[in-house]
């Protein structure tokens, strides 16, 4: 879909400017940029492009007047509230690096991400500030914690956004920003070690916009709803940047998932494009009590999905119950934008990832890094560069370099390509768990469980799940004189939920006498997987006696 706004020809690559000031310069100042639906599903708050530009100018000044310099990190630990957007764009205007944090993270998950970074400011809200205060002593370089909705006194490091905003000039002279200037830092989980910070740049806006236009094919007056939390790459690339670069109105809902409420929002607000996750769609599919045909969905042109593979059952359910195809898309935190996708105009093969977008060249490699034959499973790799590519794992440049082979980026996913050029996701090439669209590190869950006195050893794996795609399963060795009870299991789950995140809660515990490890002490997860699935564990010669 061609649109006069689909190329970023401006000399300034600053994402904050391109999403606000540039849109105003294109006579969209009076148009609604953001519509936030309150938790009751009815009340809404709106910011026009003009208002968003003005507020993000103020927030850019807030950060600069606090002494922050280009390249400093601003962590945003907030749910989808109206203030999120000017803060996010204001920090980008000031050439700061924005680090969004999933608002459901507990103290352990926060420490893992903050301690390996150089945070200057954390922005949060009053009810979440307690979690930040618990870990303040473990975070270095912290200049201030800005609270958006309360005046908290007592701790001089905690500042009120309202008060800070009242002290700074209303206008901001936008910084000239080159495409290779660092912009957003998202964290991604690996099989081992702490989460890695994936560094993106302002120039990625071109890839985000191009992918949005090619895959989602928006019309100028569309209302676009991306349900992802801005703590994840989908929530920033498509929940904020893509619709604003395109001059659309984006919609967000402050409430939690409720299928009936969501469909009422689509109906009442005439949402045109919906971007959501397969787990959400599966939860809708399994809620047999709701008759989705009762909703007026005439405005809803297309539904897109991302995060985990979209199984054919959901595709067929969408056709039958919603009267629409659901288009699956694939990308990663590292790719910054959609790489492979189903989209309107492309014949859908249910269950496939679709085809690459323009300018993206995926291949399937075998173990010797040679292209495989059609239909043969191998490593999914992407030819470098592409126009929204990450530039580093911050503080882990060796790990970054290790992701590239012979001019290709190795995604860590396994896939195959069919004779028609469609790609098919098969699984992960590592131990990372993809549960309800979130990547969870087994290492993080193991570390968290080992904090409990009742557990002396643990190994965590992914297991298939009908709702979540994959679930977290923890093999545990209990301490002497500790007996397994359901009550103990509940205690373990609460610990993971509160210290790490609700997405990392083990769905199952398996009590064992030993955790299989190799002679250097590395957990043999393939042995645990085989044990869980009742399969042959294969070669055990490296296993510790």
């Amino acid at each position: 879909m061609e649109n006069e706004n689909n190329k970023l020809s401006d000399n300034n690559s600053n994402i904050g400017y391109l999403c606000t000031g540039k849109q105003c310069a294109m006579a969209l100042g009076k148009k609604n940029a953001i519509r936030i639906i309150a938790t009751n599903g009815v009340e809404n708050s709106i910011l026009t492009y003009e208002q968003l530009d003005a507020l993000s100018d103020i927030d850019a000044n807030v950060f600069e007047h606090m002494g922050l310099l280009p390249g400093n990190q601003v962590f945003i630990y907030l749910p989808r509230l109206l203030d999120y957007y000017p803060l996010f764009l204001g920090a980008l205007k000031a050439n700061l690096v924005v680090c969004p944090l999933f608002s459901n993270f507990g103290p352990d998950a926060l420490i893992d991400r903050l301690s390996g970074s150089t945070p200057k400011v954390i922005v949060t809200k009053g009810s979440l500030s307690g979690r930040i205060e618990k870990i303040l002593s473990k975070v270095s370089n912290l200049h201030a914690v800005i609270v958006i909705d309360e005046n908290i006194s007592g701790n001089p490091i905690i500042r009120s956004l309202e008060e800070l905003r009242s002290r700074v000039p209303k206008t901001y002279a936008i910084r000239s920003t080159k495409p290779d200037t660092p912009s957003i830092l998202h964290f991604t989980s690996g099989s081992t070690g702490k989460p890695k910070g994936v560094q993106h740049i302002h120039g990625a806006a071109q890839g985000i916009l191009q992918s949005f236009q090619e895959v989602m094919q928006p019309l100028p007056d569309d209302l676009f709803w991306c349900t992802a939390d801005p703590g994840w790459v989908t929530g920033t690339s498509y929940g904020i940047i893509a619709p604003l670069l395109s001059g659309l109105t984006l919609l967000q809902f402050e409430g939690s998932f409720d299928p009936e409420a969501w469909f009422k929002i689509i109906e009442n607000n005439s949402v045109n494009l919906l971007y959501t996750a397969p787990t959400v769609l599966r939860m809708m599919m399994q809620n047999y009590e709701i008759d989705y045909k009762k909703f007026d969905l005439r405005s809803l042109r297309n539904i897109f999905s991302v995060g985990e593979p979209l199984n054919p059952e959901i595709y067929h359910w969408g056709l039958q119950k919603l009267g629409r195809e659901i288009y699956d898309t694939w990308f990663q935190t590292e790719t910054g934008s959609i790489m492979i996708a189903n989209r309107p105009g492309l014949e859908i093969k249910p269950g496939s990832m679709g085809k690459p977008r323009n300018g993206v060249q995926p291949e399937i490699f075998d173990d010797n890094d040679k292209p495989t034959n059609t239909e043969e499973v191998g490593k999914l790799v992407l030819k470098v560069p592409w126009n929204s590519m990450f530039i580093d794992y911050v503080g882990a440049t060796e790990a970054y370099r290790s992701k590239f082979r012979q001019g290709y980026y190795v995604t860590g996913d396994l896939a195959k390509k069919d004779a028609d050029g469609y790609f098919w996701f098969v699984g992960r090439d590592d131990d990372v768990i993809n549960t309800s669209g979130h990547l969870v590190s087994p290492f993080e869950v193991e570390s968290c469980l080992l904090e409990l006195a009742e557990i002396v050893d643990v190994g965590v794996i992914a297991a298939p799940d009908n709702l979540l795609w994959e679930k977290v399963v923890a093999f545990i060795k209990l301490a002497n004189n500790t007996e397994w009870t359901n009550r103990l299991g509940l205690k373990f789950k609460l610990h993971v939920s509160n210290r790490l995140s609700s997405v990392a809660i083990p769905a199952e515990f398996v009590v064992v006498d030993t955790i299989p490890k190799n002679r250097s002490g590395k957990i043999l997860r393939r042995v645990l997987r085989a044990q869980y699935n009742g399969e042959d564990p294969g070669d055990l010669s490296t296993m510790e006696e």
Partner: protein
Amino acid sequence: MDIGVLNDVFKEVFDDTSLTITRETTADNVDGWDSMTHILLISSIEEKFGIEFSQKEVIKFKTVGDLLDSINLKLP
């Protein structure tokens, strides 16, 4: 049963000693109350009060008041 007793369960599940619930409280008013923690909340209530909820009941609770009424109906 008094709402204060249920409030203690909420404080433990959501790790927030300052949390105060009312009959009108919903998932949208409590940080971290999502579909995953909802299951933990229900399990904690079942464990604490020695009662059980059906899957249908679990889905239908919209407010703390709904939950409290259901608990009181199940308690001897």
